[in-house]
């Protein structure tokens, strides 16, 4: 055990250490500085970029946004808030008791307060590989033959990528240019898959989406909603394979050349993006130190089970106000809110995180769509679930509002997303809308259609305290 007081020069010391340099991490840094101007704040990131907005990488791919526009905090952020940013510093292990962590390079960092905001790692399914020819592995330098591809070795196969970091996006862009790719296959029709699809469709590629479930964006869209999007994508000549997955991948000269689907249909493919999902990046926390289910379990103050150790963002399993249980909701707004709350509490503040719920906004081929809360419930499933639907496929419009005990718990808006935030407010504040239920169906649903007290709160600041 190292002696605490005479810390060897090589090691480092900081009041606050933040693992992760994205939404949650920087939101925490910001709010720490609000309360504690003096404390030493250090941010560690395994990536090589000061800060960039992860959701923007698909816009970068779609070339609507140039590389220098990908940052969501301006360059001077770190200097203004005197934050010590350490790039290419991947954390290897965390000693919760000794309150220090070790990075890949072996250096040790002592902390008074630690925030784990490492976000999520892409999941790569285990797929059988049938290789003709060897796979040149960049790291080991030897030819390597595989029989299976998974999260650890997919990088060794040319043409197979995940899309969660800026590096991924840059590599994909270079690969497309180098190999003159025209058609791209995306494994997984979820959020990231569709975001990627959005980018490639904008720039004229043909895409094939392979989705395990019976519809794309299954997590948040129901049949009708995803139907509209699917129809639009197909109209662009792209294919969507539902209830399907890739059984085998074929390799030629170290690069992917095709794959066979579950229903034994074979396709040529020279670029495959694995977008089946993301899971919290908790590898560096050795077992048992912190309570971890799917993500690091935190309480309402973003505290983990470890003393002085907080967690926020996609890595976390936080309170889901709609399900009344802890869940991993990996979305940007919650990451920022959790990071801010954690920062305040780390700096001695006392802010409660009131929980969040899933929400997502994506525009695909000029069809904007917003979904929030529990959108897949159907009438009758549970006796007090009520669902309002206004499905107009011709105009690519769809509105679904799920209500439980007269409180909205889920909304899907496709086509007309005007004033969607009003529903978000209703869900978050669990407003009883029984008095104005008939207004929900109105196309121009606005504040004037809200229950009187909540309307008063929004319009004149009186009425109920929210």
């Amino acid at each position, binding site marked *: 055990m190292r002696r605490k007081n005479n810390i060897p020069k090589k090691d480092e010391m900081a009041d606050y250490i933040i693992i992760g340099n994205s939404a949650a991490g920087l939101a925490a840094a910001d709010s720490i500085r609000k309360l504690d101007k003096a404390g030493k704040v250090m941010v560690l990131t395994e990536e090589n970029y000061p800060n960039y*907005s992860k959701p923007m990488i698909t816009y970068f791919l779609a070339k609507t946004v140039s590389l220098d526009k990908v*940052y969501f905090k301006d360059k001077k952020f770190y200097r203004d808030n005197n934050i010590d940013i350490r790039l290419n510093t991947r954390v290897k292990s965390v000693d919760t008791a000794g309150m220090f962590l070790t990075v890949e390079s072996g250096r040790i960092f002592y902390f008074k307060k630690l925030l784990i905001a490492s976000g999520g790692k892409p999941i790569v399914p285990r797929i059988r590989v049938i290789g003709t020819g060897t796979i040149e592995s960049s790291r080991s330098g030897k030819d390597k033959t595989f029989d299976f591809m998974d999260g650890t070795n997919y990088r060794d196969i040319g043409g197979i990528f995940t899309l969660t970091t800026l590096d991924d996006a840059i590599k994909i862009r270079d690969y497309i240019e180098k190999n003159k790719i025209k058609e791209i296959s995306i494994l997984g029709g979820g959020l990231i898959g569709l975001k990627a699809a959005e980018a490639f469709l904008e720039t004229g590629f043909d895409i094939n989406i392979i989705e395990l479930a019976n519809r794309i964006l299954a997590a948040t869209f129901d049949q009708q909603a995803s139907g509209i999007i699917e129809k639009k994508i197909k109209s662009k000549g792209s294919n969507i394979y539902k209830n399907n997955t890739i059984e085998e991948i074929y390799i030629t000269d170290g690069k992917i050349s095709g794959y066979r689907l579950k229903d034994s249909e074979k396709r040529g493919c020279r670029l495959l993006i694995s977008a089946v999902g993301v899971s919290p990046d908790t590898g560096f926390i050795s077992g048992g130190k912190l309570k971890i289910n799917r993500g690091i379990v935190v309480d309402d103050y973003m505290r983990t089970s470890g003393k002085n150790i907080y967690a926020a963002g996609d890595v976390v399993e936080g309170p889901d106000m709609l399900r009344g249980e802890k869940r991993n909701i990996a979305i940007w*707004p919650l990451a920022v809110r959790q990071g801010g709350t954690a920062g305040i509490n780390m700096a001695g503040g006392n802010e409660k995180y009131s929980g969040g719920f899933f929400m997502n906004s994506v525009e695909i081929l000029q069809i*904007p769509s917003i979904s*929030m809360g529990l959108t897949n419930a159907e009438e009758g499933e549970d006796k007090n679930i009520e669902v309002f639907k206004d499905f107009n496929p011709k105009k690519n419009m769809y509105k679904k509002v799920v209500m439980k005990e007269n409180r909205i718990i889920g909304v899907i808006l496709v086509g007309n997303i005007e004033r969607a*935030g009003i529903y978000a407010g209703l869900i978050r*504040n669990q407003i009883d809308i029984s008095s104005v239920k008939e207004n929900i169906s109105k196309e121009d649903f606005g504040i*004037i259609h809200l229950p009187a007290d909540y309307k008063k709160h929004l319009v004149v600041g009186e009425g109920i305290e929210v």
Partner: protein
Amino acid sequence: MQERPGDDCMKRIYIQEEYCIGCRLCEIYCQVKHSKSKKIIKAFKEELVDIMPRVLVEEIGYNSFAIQCRHCADAPCVEACISGAMQKNKNTGVVTCDEDKCVGCWSCIMVCPYGVIRRGLSSGKIASKCDLCVDEEIPVCVKNCPNEALKFIEKDEDKKDMMRSKNEKKK
């Protein structure tokens, strides 16, 4: 998650609902203010590009009110913005949307509980977000409300007014 309209020390736009007559002059003057020519006839007749008002009048029967961004203290839109376009100015407290940073992901529209952020249909970016007419002494919607339903007052001052008018009502 708490939304308090505005910090405690900044002047904000408040409305006395009972005196909004639904004439929509606030919308018209807001469009003029955000037009290129800033001249009412020129703006409406020549600038064919639809200039969106940043204030929105809702009306059913004789109930009506004008609503615009509240420049919330911990603004959900600033949190949800993935491109850093939506920023809250530290000193004035005004939340503004930087048009060329905005990528049109509509997350702000998704989270704003007042529904006062609206899409620019032609620009594909956020086109309607109240900027509190920082370069004007009084926001043009307040200045041109014929019935003084819109007020531009400090929070405490307005609190006092609200309290006073409330007591007066009760007395």
